């Protein structure tokens, strides 16, 4: 898949995943890799960091019986708004593509 197309989709997919549940970073990356096998985990991580810095996602330390505490991510209100906006854009794009005749 083209990198430019993928870039926007990845953010939407990560926000969608976070809207369903809170995720430990590693687990989220593994889930995403099932969908995007050719993308490195570092790419997902970078998007997570950006979402976090933009206030669309936030992280908190979760309890672990062994080892260091794990960093969990959850979506914020801003992230939820951004997700809705991305989904709207995606649907519009989908309609345009369908009207052109690409199925």
């Amino acid at each position: 898949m083209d990198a430019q197309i993928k870039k926007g989709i990845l953010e939407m997919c990560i926000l969608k995943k976070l809207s369903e549940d809170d995720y430990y970073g590693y687990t989220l990356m593994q889930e995403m890799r099932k969908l995007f096998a050719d993308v490195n985990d570092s790419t997902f991580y970078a998007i997570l960091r950006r979402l976090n810095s933009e206030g669309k996602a936030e992280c908190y330390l979760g309890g672990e019986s062994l080892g260091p505490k794990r960093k969990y991510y959850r979506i914020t209100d801003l992230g939820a708004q951004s997700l809705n906006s991305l989904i709207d854009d995606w649907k519009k794009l989908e309609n345009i593509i369908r009207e052109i005749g690409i199925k």
Partner: protein
Amino acid sequence: MTNKYLSQLKNHLLWSGLSDDEIYDILSDAVSYIKTAKDNCKSEKEIISDLGTPKEFASSVKATTIERNRKFNIRKLYMLTAVIWIMILIVYTLNTFSHTDSSKYLPSIVPISLLLCLWFISGNFYLINVINIQKINVWCILQSVIFIFSSILMYFIYSGVDKYLHILAEKNMLDRFAPVFNGGVAVCVLIILAVILYSFVTCCFRGELLNFGILCQGIGLLYTVMLYRNAIYNSVGLEMQHLSFSPKMYYICLAAGIFSYIHIFINNGKCYGRTD
């Protein structure tokens, strides 16, 4: 293998312009990731394959998180650096040339001529794009080498090499060509060296090479003004005045420096101007 991976990742991040806290945070996340992957029975080879090479990892983080912060910080630093330098230079220059008894100029003979030539040449490299903008390291190294070279040269000239002083004494030119550092100048030199060291450590090694370069040139400019001031205060003759800068010429250079700074700011630090 993972230690090597983390070490390489750290090196790439150090040159990316991230803050220490961000680098620490990213490395902590990487350690946590590797530990969890190992707990999930993944081999080191698989882990590194999943994460991508250290360079890819650092590039991903840079591409998505650094640009915004970096632009802001660099711009802020440019503004601060420029305002400080311009203020210092204006006050210093006005003070230097406002004395009525400073009408005699002593050219700083070969060393200063050489220093200025080197500085001008290095500035011209960028003015006419001889050195590609991507080769910013070359420029900074060049500036550093010139600065170190001139500092060493000036140190020998002004603090005095025995032979040099002896020759000057024989020719009865000691006062003119080997003035002794007074306390104030010595403090200034020490401050400059401290600033250089600080800027080198915090800027150069953190990837803020452009800012370091500009700081280096700013220091050079002040250093040159100091030398001229020193030379003027110790001057006794006008024999070689035709070789020296007049105050008017110096004002033109100062104006050129200010415009270079403005040019750099307008372009968000994405270009080079003559600050020498």
